[in-house]
């Protein structure tokens, strides 16, 4: 099991890389990216997710982000519209990352992969994609149609076409991820 310092460092790296890719890193962005990091890329962050209003959501991760704010490792970043309010890393979190070089080296490819895929996507899109991964994990081996229908059952505001596109995106991303996952095992 990962130690807290390792888990913290990886989350800070995820936030920094998402920002580099253009994300304003609201909690929803971090939640969805961390979900993919764990469920698709196999990074053992060990957060428990439930399907909530906006797709998979971890109350534990939410508490952890608050705890990081308490320890001055994360800070609010308030931006004018159309951006939402986000979180940013601090001097303290950058210092902490230097203490776990092996962990960072091992998981950085997975983090970069997720950040590249998610950095420019908005909240609505992330909801569809992360729900598609949730459904794919819930019903392994099911074809595209069945999974897309399941998404529309769970989230009636998502149309069938949108659901299908999200499932296709997840399937393609899973294929691409295989190379990254294989490369990071040392």
């Amino acid at each position, binding site marked *: 099991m990962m130690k807290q310092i390792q888990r913290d460092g990886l989350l800070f790296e995820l936030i920094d890389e998402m920002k580099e890719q253009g994300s304003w890193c609201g909690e929803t962005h971090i939640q969805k990216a961390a979900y993919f990091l764990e469920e698709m890329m196999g990074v053992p962050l060990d957060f428990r997710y439930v399907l*909530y209003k906006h797709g998979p959501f971890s109350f534990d991760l939410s508490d952890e982000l*608050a705890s990081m704010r308490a*320890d*001055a490792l994360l800070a609010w970043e*308030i931006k004018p519209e*159309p951006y939402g309010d986000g979180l940013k890393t601090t001097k303290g979190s950058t210092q902490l990352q230097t*203490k776990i070089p092996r962990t960072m080296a091992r998981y950085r490819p997975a983090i970069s992969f997720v950040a590249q895929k998610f950095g420019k996507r908005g909240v609505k899109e992330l*909801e569809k994609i992360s729900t598609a991964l949730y459904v794919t994990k819930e019903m392994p081996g099911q074809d595209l149609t069945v999974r897309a229908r399941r998404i529309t059952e769970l989230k009636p505001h998502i149309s069938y076409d949108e659901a299908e596109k999200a499932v296709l995106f997840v399937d393609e991303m899973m294929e691409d991820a295989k190379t990254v996952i294989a490369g990071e095992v040392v």
Partner: protein
Amino acid sequence: MVKKNNHEVRDPIYAFVHMDSDERQVLNSAPVQRLRHIHQLALTYLVYPGATHRRFEHSLGVMELATRIYTTVMENRCTDTLDINGGYDRNYYLRVLRMASLVHDIGHAPFSHASEDLFPAGWDHEVMTLSLIESEEMERLWKRLKIQAEDVAKLALGPKHYTKDIFTTTEAILSEIITGDTFGADRMDYLLRDSHHTGVAYGRFDHYRLIETLQVLPKRYEDESMEPALGVESGGIQSAEALLLARYFMFSQLYFHPIRRIYDIHLKEFLQAWLEGGYFPTDLDDHLSLTDNEVMSAIGKASRDPRLPGHEAAERIVKRNHYRVLYTRNPNDVLKNREAGLAISTAACAEFGEENIRHDRPKKSAGRVMFPVLELDGRIVSSLSRSDTLQHIPEVAADTVYINPDLLDVGRKWLEKNRKRVIESAVEEESE
């Protein structure tokens, strides 16, 4: 003769809590009546003498507040983002919400959160609450009220703890009315009630104004998202600030008070020694038979008899000879080592023996300061962009090391000499 169907209970916070005869049957059930004997704040009354209130009145208060929130939210009409359609039965869900509020705490073990860790693996007070909601006694009452146990459980526990089924958007919002981290009735009531009973005035806020301004609003400021959440009209922002400041002050002044916390630790030590196998029973009848009364009686006996299990912890509680604070969290230490308290505790255990040192690093739910605000011109904005105050409310954290009172002086000298070295040299290393 006409039989009275509406009943009221006097309450120090809301004046009256109302219910009808069928709801009173739930109030009179064994699981809810047991809450008369579970202190809301465990042994806090040893520090704040007024804190003798119980989960029973808190549960009534949550039912009253949840009702007011539900009524306001429905009257404010901003329910477009919910999956409420022609089939939505407003009165059915009001009934479910009220009953879920009334029973949301029935799974608590004696002394509430203080002893939560003593449930066996796979159990906690939420699992116990679910078992009781689904029990035969309660099923009979739900049937009489024409509501489903599953719906009551969902709203009482919320999506974090009810994992048998996925929540619809409406169910998620309804459970947020009870369990929500920002505007949940549970939180509002415990702040107001704990403040009232302890005399810690910081917990008060204008809940009347706050509730008047509550709305279900889509978080449009997040990429035009339609995800609904409980938010406020712009006129309610100050009362929302007051609520979140109240939470900050109550955690820093009361809930994380170091002496209150060490009494929780001594209480847990006593229970571990006293309970069969060191854990609470999970059989429903056994759970219902065990309250603070039985535990306090056992503590009294054990404190007088060194041969009884848990004698030392019991004596510390009764004679107020609790462990003393050796180290408390310091922001500068956190920057050097996030687990500074653990480092001090580990080193102190090596120096003075594990039996003489206790470490406490309580976890708490995130205080969500971000919620939607409805502006006068109809725009929906984030609370953080609207309020400088909310941006600057800190999260509360505690990290405390305690020492046996007999070793306090020598412990303090040791810490003064070794503090810097221990904190800086004990930074956690990465594992493989």
